[in-house]
């Protein structure tokens, strides 16, 4: 699923965001990237998405080398469900239109995209906000639309950056449960979080502890 060898990332400013490391994440695993702010969690997610290019070593995501052609990386992204810390919903569009947009570029989804988008919104508890403009939604609701947009793509890999950030405990637990349930569909879920108290009891998962670009991998 994901294989890194001597992977490192140094920004043009000279900041070493990720120090050389080796690791492997298997299909269907639930992975938590934990660590303080600036420890390199978001940078690592960006490397997985291909929105940041590694400066050393090698990285393979879903069988695609992240130093390969942009066209191939773009094709590989069809199998990723990204969830952004700031949601990145398209303004002036409804929740449903935003979720449908997540399906628009996927050749492997042939079903009625409107119906499955509505179903995804119902699944994240937004049946009453299907036609609402995203500009009118609360933080928690916007986060759930972003999760629905990622889930509906039937991805092999979900990359979620702080999906519980800025949410109250009840909403955070609900969203974590939604993401953890995706393991049943053999989807690999990688998420960054500060909320370590919410994942203390999580079993059968991988925890990547990050600090100042260094990482330590733990399987529980």
């Amino acid at each position, binding site marked *: 699923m994901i294989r890194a060898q001597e992977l490192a990332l140094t920004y043009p400013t000279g900041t070493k965001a990720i120090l050389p490391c080796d690791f492997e994440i298997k299909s269907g695993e639930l992975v938590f990237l934990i660590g303080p702010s600036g420890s390199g969690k978001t940078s690592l997610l960006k490397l997985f998405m291909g*929105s940041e290019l590694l400066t050393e070593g090698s990285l393979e995501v879903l069988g695609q080398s992240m130093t390969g052609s942009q066209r191939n990386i*773009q094709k590989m*992204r069809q199998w990723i469900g990204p969830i*952004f810390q700031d949601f990145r919903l398209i303004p002036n569009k409804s929740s449903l239109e935003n979720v449908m947009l997540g399906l628009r570029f996927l050749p492997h989804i042939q079903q009625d995209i409107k119906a499955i988008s509505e179903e995804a919104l119902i699944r994240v508890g937004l049946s009453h906000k299907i036609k609402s403009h995203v500009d009118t939604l609360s933080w928690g609701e916007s986060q759930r639309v972003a999760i629905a*947009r990622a889930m509906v793509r039937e991805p092999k890999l979900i990359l979620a950056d702080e999906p519980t950030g800025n949410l109250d405990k009840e909403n955070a637990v609900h969203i974590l449960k939604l993401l953890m349930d995706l393991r049943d569909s053999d989807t690999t879920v990688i998420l960054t979080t500060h909320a370590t108290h919410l994942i203390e009891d999580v079993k059968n998962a991988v925890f990547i502890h990050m600090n100042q670009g260094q990482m330590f991998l733990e399987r529980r």
Partner: protein
Amino acid sequence: MFSNGLTIVSNGLIFFLLALVISSFIITEHMVQILESEAEVSVYSKMEIQEDAAWIEDLTRINGVRDVRLVSEEEAYERMAAILGEEAQVLQYFQENPFSAFIELSIDLQNMEMVLDTLEIMPEISSIRDNRDVLGKLRDIVKGITFMSVLILIAVGMTTLVVLSHTIRQSIYHYREQITTLTLLGAPMRFIAIPFYILGIWMSFVSGIIATLGAFFVIQSSYRFMMGPIPFIPLPPMTETIQVVAMYILSLSVIFGILGCMLGMVSVKKQ
């Protein structure tokens, strides 16, 4: 939105300048063509001209001579009277017809020099009158206008490309977050690029329409102005001139629109 409006208006004004140059080119080119097709040389002889004289027969064999015609004294008088119009009464003061008969040669303008050289060595001919100077000056005017047209076309092209590519870059910058989101959702580049191309081409085309409308009114009033006091100027049909100008301006606006978008996209990609 406001800056897009300004871009449309400024490009419209630039295209309008180009429309004026193109219409001037069409009109002068037409004038020269008409005058060239009527290129004539008048040949005078010391002797009385007989239509069946052998030397007149020889004139028809000169390379570049299309037609040879004898203009009698009476016809020369009538022609001058027609040219003078109301002023023709001045001719009545002559006791005798002051005009002599001459030979009128229709020639190919390209062979004018050769024809004149041949005529000059013919002993029967005393003088030759041609409109070489007028045609030469007109040709120079056309050359000048063509040169100006090319310069203005280059200037219009460069200005439009710069203005449009800058507008496209601004738009891309404005929507950069949404573009990143769509890219990470797997959207192909063409899906992201097409709206910007549509915007650029649409803006350029609207500028072209504004310029064409402006040119329409200017051409119309110029024709009205020229055909009143100077009716003998051989102008091309006005509808045809407007159609050609519109076709050029609208096509160029679309071409420059596409090129401007491409330039904007390339500069964004490089960054």
